[in-house]
């Protein structure tokens, strides 16, 4: 938020630049700021009491619990598998480079898949009418219309996030340090913690924040897989959807406010992690 020195501005601040800045401000205000303010105002529109009433409904509390559980489980699994997969793709000499290139091109696929289709895929493979689905329900652990399916759907959607943060860093730092450490006798586990981890730490932090944001906000895939059963598989986002469907806009707005506050907090953490990571921008 720095103001430019006068010499620079006098040279640059022609009418056209003023117009461009004005356009940019209008885009941000119309597209981002007004809607955000609207969510806050809307939530308090019917008084603080009705806001809390909407949030303390049993189904709302249950939805918060489910969302929290999905976020925690997915973030843990995606971080673990994401870091390991990234290491495998960049460092795995045991795979031929062709296989690695093939796997690498598979990573981004979930970005191209509509969340609804992502959920639908899980239905097709593990739904109640399928062999696998029947097998798991007989074991007493149904997957679709239950928690495991929601975790799977969210894992699918968040899969690329961690890998795409870490793989470039691993590529960039190269293997020299790790090799030196190995030669000096430090073995793989120690090498990882002492040499690899410090360099990917901020990438992992950023990946975790992205994963939390995405799993918190996932809607389409979870809606399909969960069946949106109240007090059972309903998450915060699918509750917002149901409230809107029932024309209970005020209640939807209250839940949305909680989600928006979480998102903005995550956005702030993202900014902080980005700065620590020392990378300016990312497309995903």
């Amino acid at each position: 938020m720095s103001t430019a020195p006068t010499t620079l501005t006098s040279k640059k601040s022609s009418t056209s630049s003023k117009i461009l800045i004005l356009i940019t401000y209008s885009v941000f205000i119309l597209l981002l700021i007004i809607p955000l303010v609207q969510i806050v105002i809307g939530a308090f529109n019917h008084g603080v009491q009705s806001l809390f009433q909407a949030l303390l409904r049993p189904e709302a509390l249950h939805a918060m619990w489910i969302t929290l559980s999905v976020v925690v489980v997915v973030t843990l699994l995606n971080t673990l598998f994401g870091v390991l997969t990234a290491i495998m793709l960049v460092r795995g000499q045991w795979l031929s480079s062709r296989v690695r290139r093939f796997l690498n091109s598979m990573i981004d696929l979930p970005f191209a898949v509509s969340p609804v289709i992502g959920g639908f895929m899980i239905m097709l493979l593990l739904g109640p009418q399928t062999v696998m689905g029947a097998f798991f329900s007989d074991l007493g652990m149904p997957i679709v219309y239950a928690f495991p399916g929601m975790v799977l759907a969210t894992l699918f959607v968040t899969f690329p996030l961690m890998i795409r943060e870490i793989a470039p860093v691993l590529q960039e730092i190269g293997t020299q340090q790790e090799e030196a450490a190995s030669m000096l006798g430090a073995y793989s586990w120690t090498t990882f913690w002492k040499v690899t981890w410090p360099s990917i730490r901020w990438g992992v932090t950023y990946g975790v924040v992205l994963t939390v944001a995405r799993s918190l906000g996932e809607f389409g895939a979870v809606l399909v897989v969960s069946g949106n059963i109240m007090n059972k598989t309903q998450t915060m986002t699918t509750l917002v959807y149901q409230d809107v469907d029932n024309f209970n806009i005020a209640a939807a707005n209250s839940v949305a406010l909680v989600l928006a506050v979480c998102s903005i907090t995550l956005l702030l953490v993202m900014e902080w992690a980005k700065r620590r990571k020392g990378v300016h921008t990312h497309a995903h």
Partner: protein
Amino acid sequence: MNAVLNHKGALWGFRTTLLLYMFLLIILPITGIYAHSLSAGWNMFVESISDPLAWKAVWLTLRLSLLAMVINMVIGTITAWVLHRYQFPGRTLLNSLVDLPFALPTAVGGLMILLLLGPNSSVGQWADAIGIRIVFGEPAIVVAMVFVTFPFVIRAVQPLLEEADKTQEEAAHTLGASKWRTFYQVLLPQMRPGIISGGMLAFSRAMAEFGAVVLVAGNIPGKTLIASVYIFGEIESDNPQGAAAVSVILLTLSFLVLWFINTLQAKEGR
């Protein structure tokens, strides 16, 4: 721990688990959906996709996603340029706000649009008075798509601007080229790869969008029903065949876009 990790069997098991995880989570489901769409035979597939409502949904999605892409390419380029080039109060704040649509749940994005432009809002009532339907009509779908894909072009153009060689621009200026000429002949070519790849990403994301759109589109079959909502409807009404057929069309389009972006980036990288 080291002893366990270095054990040959453990290492083998570990590697298999990783490959299996990727295979089961990503590759199997995607091939599964293609297989399912053709499982009842080619004729059934053709029949499913030639359902006029399915076609209309796919066509509407393509048309509106293209429109959202073009809008994003224009405002994204301007925004990236202004954020990079000019110093003005609030610049850092705006730059951080760019990522908001990525961080915000899409259902919340949809609700925002509903609240702002819906029938009970002042904008909605004003538009109604002059005979334009925003929410439950095409305009709201485009707004939802633009909102959700807003960061793509900006985040693709910004790194290019940071890397760009400023001397070229200065040379053009010194040689007496007008501002617009400098823009078209020097700056725009520098930004072009970012505008294209960011725009394509925005396009594929807009085609796939569900959460924000389903809340504002009204979902009238043949009119405001987009492909992803159509698929959802077919799943709900227990017609996996129809859902799979449209999914395959949508997926193939997205994969082509992704492939195109990768080729483009590989070319730029060399």
